[in-house]
């Protein structure tokens, strides 16, 4: 219960930081994506299932406030949570390189998803332009931000939240 509360509060906190502060520190109109960092960190530190729900919740917030139809962002963030959860207990989560690489990959996939669902379907076909101008810069900025904030999420997960080590959380290693 306590874990769920902490996750909920952190998720909401990240959401409005993303809407306000992250937009203020945008470079060349590109803002980093704190929400992806958050969901990926949870996936890496808490496992697939938790990250799946956290991703769904974060995505739902996005859908409710800024999405046209419910479901697109929920689905994308949920997938990111699940994908990053695959790395749970396979890589050490106290090494900064792993989350950096993971956020880079997941941010790329997420933006490709947004592009395909909300731009390509409306007939915006300039894929290369969008990759060069939006997806790659955002990925780099997000990776950079990961280096700064990951320790904070690590602290939240390992100090404030209870650890429940279950065998079923890991797919490949312990089974």
């Amino acid at each position: 219960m306590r874990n769920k509360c902490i996750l909920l509060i952190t998720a909401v906190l990240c959401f409005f930081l993303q809407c306000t502060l992250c937009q203020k520190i945008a470079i060349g109109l590109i803002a980093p994506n704190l929400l992806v960092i958050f969901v990926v960190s949870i996936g890496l530190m808490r496992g697939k299932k938790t990250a799946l729900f956290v991703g769904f919740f974060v995505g739902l917030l996005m859908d409710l406030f800024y999405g046209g139809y419910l479901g697109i962002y929920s689905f994308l963030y949920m997938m990111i949570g699940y994908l990053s959860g695959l790395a749970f207990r396979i890589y050490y989560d106290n090494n900064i390189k792993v989350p950096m690489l993971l956020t880079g990959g997941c941010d790329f996939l997420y933006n490709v998803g947004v592009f395909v669902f909300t731009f390509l379907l409306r007939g915006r076909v300039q894929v290369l332009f969008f990759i060069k101008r939006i997806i790659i810069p955002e990925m780099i900025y997000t990776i950079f931000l990961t280096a700064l904030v990951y320790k904070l999420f690590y602290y939240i997960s390992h100090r404030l939240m209870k650890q429940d080590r279950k065998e079923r959380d890991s797919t490949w290693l312990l089974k």
Partner: protein
Amino acid sequence: MKKKRNFHLKSKHMLAIMSIVCVSLLITTFASDFSVQPLKDGAGYIVVPFEKGLNRIGTWMNGIADNFRDVRELAEENEKLQDQVDALKEKNNQLAVDQKELERLEELYSVDEEYSEHDKVLAQVIAKEPGNWYSTFTIDKGRRDGIQVDMNVIAAGGLVGIVTEAGPGWAIVRTIIDDGSNVSGMTVADSDTCIVSGSLELMDSGQITFSQLRDDEGRVSVGENVVTSHISDKYLEGILIGTIASIERDANNLTCTGYLVPAVDFRHLQEVLVITKLKDSAKETGDEE
């Protein structure tokens, strides 16, 4: 509680279930009139107060950063501004004369200035769209202040956008530079109508595109102002959108396409005005030709 513990879903099954939930959510909101407004209102009660507070902190920090600007830079700027003031003073005198003339003419033709007559609500921009794909923002006024969906939003220079969602204490505005925005516009001189659409591809130049401008005689030229048109069903007539930066004749030799420089500086938008009048009600009271 203990019994529940024995029941475990594998995470991949969970993923499948939640994916189905997402897709069904998508379909329900897409296909039916199922309203999620109560849900949105509820979420807004949690998030918006924090956003307001954070925004205040952000503005405060911006103020501090500005204080650290180089003194020399400021002196230089001061000099430049002084020149500008002189030039503007001269211009102002000229304009004052023109204004008098305009007033006289207006009286003569009994033209009422619709634009300034509308009631407006001043609102603060408190949050922006979290991603980099769209250009929408949240303002700190909502239904309680009389704001409704489809109301026009303006700033000092001209048209900013339109309210797409209105919660009790906040509203979401889609700007005209948003990739999904289309506005019906017309040129000031000849009332030739065109469609003004935002495009993410032009984010660096800050311009927006216009198309389907019918201009048989080639009278429209660079530098002409484009305002919202009389045939638009959501935008009030006569709000300045921008100035034509370039124009090109289409292959069909009938219509023109080109780029506009918006009248509003979208990068430094902090306060906007919402016109609390819908086009529909304007139609009822206004005379139709």
